[in-house]
């Protein structure tokens, strides 16, 4: 494989890696069944792209996009976090689709389905990340920061409460913890991280449109964190690498033209997924045991 393609895929991996870690906090660690994650990613992408196009420096724009994604998560969290399990899943899925409908139909702001072209590359203090190589450095830095922050959260007393909520919310409530606040906090933080990923995406591809933020993306990230081992950030990153490499690597397998190679790639990917899940239903790196107080 040529280096430029490898670099590109690595950039994609850093972006998806951040998404996987952020969703892992919400779903893996806390057990909040969030199917609307792609929406926060999209909010980050649009916020950042529009601000930078309006002349705001990228560094400020990315902070704003994280704040915006976090803020929307907060608003969405108010009514939804009372719901549990699959009810939360369907509501977050619905809100994700409504958000996408806003991207699509607020044409004066987002240009709707036409998409936003010509987004400038990210730059910090005059250093412009205008090639994939440079962007990879930026992506890795952001991924590392996200990773460290997520690990800090998971292995702090706060993180133990999150896992407690996942295992048995009533028990945590019985200990006098306001679980609603904890859930809100993790949703906001996770969504802000998704906003960061969105900003990175927008300024890398330099073009965004609503079709980049579909529910399938959330599903895709879901598959990653399940196979990585719920609540395990290292697993999430490793599986992101494996997934992207496998999904795009299948392009290089010489499949016969008459067999519809693109569909066959999807078929093979699906079968490999089933086999992998059956082999390691708890993920490649099962969660480390947590000692409860």
């Amino acid at each position, binding site marked *: 494989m040529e280096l430029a393609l490898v670099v590109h895929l690595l950039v994609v991996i850093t972006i998806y890696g951040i998404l996987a870690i952020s969703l892992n906090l919400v779903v893996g660690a806390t057990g909040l069944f969030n199917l609307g994650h792609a929406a926060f990613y999209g909010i980050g992408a649009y916020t950042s792209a529009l601000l930078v196009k309006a002349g705001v420096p990228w560094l400020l724009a990315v902070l704003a996009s994280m704040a915006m994604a976090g803020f929307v998560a907060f608003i969405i969290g108010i009514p939804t976090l009372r719901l549990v*399990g*699959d009810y939360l899943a369907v509501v977050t899925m619905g809100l994700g689709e409504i958000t996408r*409908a806003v991207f699509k139909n607020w044409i004066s702001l987002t240009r709707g389905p036409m998409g936003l072209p010509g987004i400038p590359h990210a730059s910090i203090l005059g250093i412009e990340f205008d090639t994939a190589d440079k962007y990879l450095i930026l992506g890795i830095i952001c991924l590392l920061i996200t990773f460290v922050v997520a690990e800090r959260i998971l292995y702090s007393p706060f993180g133990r409460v999150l896992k407690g909520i996942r295992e048995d919310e009533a028990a945590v409530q019985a200990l006098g913890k306001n679980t609603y606040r904890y859930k809100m906090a993790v949703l906001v933080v996770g969504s802000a991280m998704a906003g960061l990923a969105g900003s990175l995406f927008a300024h890398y591809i330099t073009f965004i449109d609503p079709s980049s933020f579909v529910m399938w993306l959330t599903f895709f990230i*879901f598959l990653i964190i399940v196979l990585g081992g719920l609540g395990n950030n290292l697993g999430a990153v490793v599986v992101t690498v494996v997934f992207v490499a496998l999904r795009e690597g299948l392009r290089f397998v010489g499949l016969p033209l008459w067999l519809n190679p693109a*569909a066959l790639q999807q078929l093979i990917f699906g079968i490999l*997924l*089933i086999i992998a899940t*059956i082999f390691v*239903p708890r993920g490649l790196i099962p969660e480390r045991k947590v000692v409860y107080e």
Partner: protein
Amino acid sequence: MEIFVQLLINGVIAGGTYALAAVGYSMVYGALKFINFAHGSIAMVGAYIAFVLVTMADVPLVPAFLGSMLLTAGLGVMVERVAYRPLRRAPKLASLTTAIAVSFVLDAAVMIIMGADIRTFSLTGMRSYQIGPIYITPVQGAIILTSLVFMVGLYGLLTRTKLGKAIRAVADGISLAEVSGIDTNLIISAVFAIGSALAAASGALIGMDTNLQPTMGFIITVKAFAAVVLGGLGNVWGAVVGAFLIGIVENTGVWFIPPVWKDSIAYGILILALFLRPSGIFGKKEEAQVTVL
């Protein structure tokens, strides 16, 4: 007013197709407590089987319809054996992962075999009839009739027969059913067979009313999922009510709000309903389980 009656009928037609898909979805949820995201893809396969029987094997419409239900029932049983049964005791998210993977596989397989072309049953003589102020085609009449017949049939099955009672028993408590001497694996196979057959009916009717595409399953999955959750998870009759509600709200709502927000309306109503009743219309509090783990 006249137009409103027509909108209502349109909603009932849409609701009928959703309901057929939703009851199977709900039954599977009842038995295994996980969301079978492959359900819509199974409905799609059912639609294609009916299509192949009618247009390529020259089977008359009604036998083809029933044949597709039968064959799809077999497919459902097979999917459960291969992709879900090995994960019975794994975290629920593992089953969710394989369900998504199964839908990848089914969509891709149909695309490889049948091509990406849009297909149609080319039913001749399908003119619409005007009854008072409303217009309705034979297929649409069949949709309403079929969904009613199958709902009544399903009601009889679940309340009057030993199999039906066992299905409800398994949904109430799978280990208790086991120790009562019920071969739960057999019952779960039966659930998948019935659910998939009804999904096939839904897919085939949608296909006859409009057209077929290998990706048509996703929207069925989403609508049925919403219907099931709105009705209360695991409650079959709740799913039916939820399905008709969504169909009617979508169709009447578009009259007042631009149709680009059609899906958003459906989700909005869903979110509002769950805000008022966090466990669905007919759901019980204790059944609002967490699928994640």
